[in-house]
């Protein structure tokens, strides 16, 4: 691994060491994505789940009504949040067989890099699920989601990064619990509420023809604050969260 450091160190590092940590995180993400591309266990499950929920939603309300456009953001982000839990559950759980997690923790890899690497892998997988769901959603519900592609992509990346970091942190916290699959959603959904509110609001705005700039800025700022605060907390508490 590049940028070798003492395991568990979390001090402020000079720039070259920081670049080393980023490389370590990217190596972890590459490893996770390579495993996922071979097995496709999380992507298939999350994608199939998302599309099934989008289909079921068509029975809940009249899909042709104008109201659908007003609640489109809410529907999409609920689907993404639920699909995300399937991805996060696998993130650290796939390291349990053959004591892979213990090996990773004993390696020269810093724990902050391991956590951020897992978050990057979560981000990539969730963005794929979101992109596929968005296309299916546009077809099923006649939503023109391509009106503001740049802003929509930025909002999706910001919101998904927040979900991914929280998912990685709590995936790590719950990995050794008896009731892992039950505990993860119970813990992460209340924590994600501010992020989901901002993501829903900004997505609804960007599905309309002339979204308000002021509202976009307001909700965009909330997404950035959430991302910065939770990423910083994840880095600070990485040594506490990741224990053998």
């Amino acid at each position, binding site marked *: 691994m590049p940028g070798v450091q003492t395991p568990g160190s979390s001090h402020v590092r000079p720039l070259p060491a920081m670049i080393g940590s980023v490389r370590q995180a990217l190596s972890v993400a590459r490893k996770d994505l390579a495993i996922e591309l071979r097995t496709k266990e999380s992507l298939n499950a999350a994608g199939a789940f998302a599309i099934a929920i989008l289909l079921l939603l068509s029975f809940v309300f009249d899909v042709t009504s104008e109201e659908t456009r007003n609640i489109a953001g809410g529907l999409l982000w609920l689907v993404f949040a639920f699909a995300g839990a399937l991805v996060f559950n696998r993130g650290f759980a796939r390291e349990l067989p053959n004591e892979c997690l213990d090996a990773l923790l004993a390696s020269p890899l810093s724990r902050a890099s391991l956590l951020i690497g897992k978050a990057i892998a979560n981000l990539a997988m969730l963005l794929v699920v979101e992109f596929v769901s968005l296309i299916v959603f546009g077809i099923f519900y006649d939503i023109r989601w391509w009106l503001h592609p740049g802003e929509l992509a930025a909002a999706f990346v910001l919101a998904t990064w927040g979900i991914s970091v*929280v998912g990685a*942190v*709590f995936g790590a*916290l*719950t990995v*050794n*619990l*008896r*009731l892992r699959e039950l*505990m993860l959603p*119970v*813990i992460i*959904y*209340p*924590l994600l*509420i*501010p992020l989901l*509110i*901002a993501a829903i*609001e900004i997505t609804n705005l960007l599905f309309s023809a002339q979204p308000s700039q002021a509202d976009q800025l*307001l909700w965009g700022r*909330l997404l950035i*604050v*959430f991302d910065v*605060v*939770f990423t910083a*907390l994840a880095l600070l*508490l990485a040594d*506490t*969260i990741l*224990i053998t």
Partner: protein
Amino acid sequence: MREKIAIGLAIAAAGLLAYDLYQIFLVLPDEAMQGAIYRIIFFHVPAAITGMIGYFVALTLSVLYLSSGKLRWDSLAASVVEVSVIFSVVNIVTGSIWARVIWGIWWTWDYRLTSALVCVLIFSGYLMMRRAIDEPTQRARLSSALCIFGCVDVVIVWKSIEWFRNNHPGPVLSIRTGGGTIDPAMERMIYFNLIALLLMAAALVLVRTRQEATAREIDSLRRLANAA
């Protein structure tokens, strides 16, 4: 010693509560617009403040545990969270009763109500997670991390839902408004009841901490027996 302090706190809380109840129900008049139901504010606001203080005390205790590694900070944090969740539930239930009488509905998705509910959900998750971990050191480390994330999130939740929607009555205490929104006698009673509830919370935390310590002792004895 700890038991004597708990009993002392409980007696002080009971005495002050008895005085407060006498003042609230027999001395203070009905409010001009709301009638008798306004009295719920004497329990609703102090319960909310007690719960909130508790969460931030738990945050401090969790940081103390992570920096010192002493399990007694973790036991104390868990006890404080448990008691705070109860006070938050009291806050939500009393608020709902008031809303039913004044607004005609039990619940509205206002920012304060929603924030209070989110607090209860986050810290219920904390209590549930503790039950799912057997090993005390692991439980303490993971709970402390969750408590820190939870407390930080509560601040962001509060702000985000305030931007999202707001139809809750505005602040009434003069430390927030500068005065003029509530009769001084009524405001004094809110503070008196806050002190009573804080004393009660402290007594409950001491009792709960004692139970946590006993549970830890039993657990270590069981492990010792299993190892033998």
